[in-house]
């Protein structure tokens, strides 16, 4: 289980997280929603120790990872896979090498076996025949899908997705959602998904958390969230300009 306890984080004078409390259940998909620039990516990076909170605890399987040394943190990270918002593919490597990277680093599988796994993962995200292309030769949506394939290459126990469907067409969005749901179910993964897409939120999430002004202001099942009377949430889900969220 992943537990965030009273996380505070500022960059310079800007307070981004202001006391986040959240429990992420094992074997479930938790979706985090919230406004652009609201700190969702920052929150996700805390879960895997890329950012350290100014105060608070990040507990992964009963270990507070905030105070861990590099070596122990590395061990914890082997449980994780992560899709970055901009994919973060290695641009000195082709698609095959990118997806194969975690396999080559942490398993003793043979070249041929790795290639088969990579092709299988790429097929799952709807890509074939791109193994030899470099990341710079791919479209934004294709890069995202390669990043997705890399994140699930090892079948890690916990996968963090930073906006897996942003920038994809509606059909591909549906396919990726389906892929997340399927993989989650088959391997009993713990998934954390950041999403803006209201449709995806309810199809993918077992639990939904809304981040607003540095806090989790609402948490619950999709049904509960749909019924919520919280004005911020109502405005967010309906995409209305009227309400407590100030855009302009």
């Amino acid at each position: 289980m992943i537990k965030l306890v009273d996380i505070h984080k500022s960059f310079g004078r800007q307070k981004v997280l202001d006391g986040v409390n959240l429990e992420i259940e094992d074997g479930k998909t938790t979706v985090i929603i919230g406004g652009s620039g609201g700190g969702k990516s920052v929150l996700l990076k805390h879960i895997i120790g890329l950012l350290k909170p100014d105060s608070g605890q990040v507990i992964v399987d009963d270990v507070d990872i905030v105070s861990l040394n590099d070596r122990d943190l590395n061990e914890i990270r082997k449980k994780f896979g992560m899709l970055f918002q901009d994919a973060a593919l290695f641009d000195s490597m082709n698609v095959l090498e990118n997806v194969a990277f975690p396999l080559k680093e942490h398993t003793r599988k043979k070249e041929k076996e790795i290639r088969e796994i990579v092709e299988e993962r790429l097929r799952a995200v709807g890509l074939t025949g791109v193994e030899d292309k470099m990341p710079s030769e791919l479209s934004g949506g294709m890069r995202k899908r390669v990043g997705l394939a890399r994140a699930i290459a090892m079948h890690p126990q916990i996968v963090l997705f930073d906006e897996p469907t942003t920038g994809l067409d509606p059909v591909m969005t549906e396919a990726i959602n389906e892929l997340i749901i399927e993989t989650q179910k088959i391997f009993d993964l713990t998934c954390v998904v950041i999403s803006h897409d209201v449709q995806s939120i309810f199809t993918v999430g077992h639990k939904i958390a809304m981040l607003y002004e540095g806090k989790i202001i609402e948490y619950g099942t999709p049904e509960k969230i749909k019924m919520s009377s919280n004005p911020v949430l109502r405005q967010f889900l309906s995409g209305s300009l009227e309400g407590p969220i100030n855009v302009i």
Partner: protein
Amino acid sequence: MNKIAATIDNFGRAILDNIEEMGRILILFLSVLMWMVRPPLKLRLIFRQMEFVGVKSIFVVVLTGTFTGMVMALQGYYGFKMFNAESLVGSTVALGMTRELGPVLTALMVTARAGSAMAAELGTMRVTEQIDALYVMATNPVKHLIVPRVIAGVVMLPLLTVVADFMGILGGYFVGVPILGINSGAFVNNITKMVDLGDIYHGLTKAAFFGLILSVVGCHKGFNTTGGAEGVGRATTEAVVLASVSILISDYFLTAIMF
């Protein structure tokens, strides 16, 4: 009064910043050492960097070495001619190249070519979150990215310096003997008489040290880049300036210690 205080304040802060940066470079160097001895050694990555730092620098090092040797012969000739000691041109060129100009010029050229590229490459990886991605995949970026570059720098700089030394002497010979008419036998004889292996070893030791400086500084600047494409540009410039200055300053102290 306030202005003076502010000036002192700024000055002090600049010094503190510099000391802090020195400290961080030192820490990076120590962690490079630590990761270097921890298996597995990533040979493929090391060879790729050696190719980039070494093989691909040969052409510019050949050019630099040759012309430096040529101009030294020319300058030396006019000086020595006044004392009718033209035959000393050969040994002057050879000593100058092996002890000083070979290592220093090679290091400066490689800094401009490869040190800057290291900063730019790692800087881009930093701002596009590729370094974060390495952490996430439980791969230490110091081991994966920096160790191979530092090894390549330390190993390849002496080799390139040998090339520069040789080409410099050859260039000196070319200008001295056929063009200026110095006796060929005297030219070569003087070199073998005046230059001993110690001179060459000292030069190569310097070169290895310069290779360490340029790779560690280049990696440090790139690794700690912030601020997008502009930040990458800044990191690259700073890497070249800091590495070049450090090479020239350390050259003095190395010379003072060794000779």
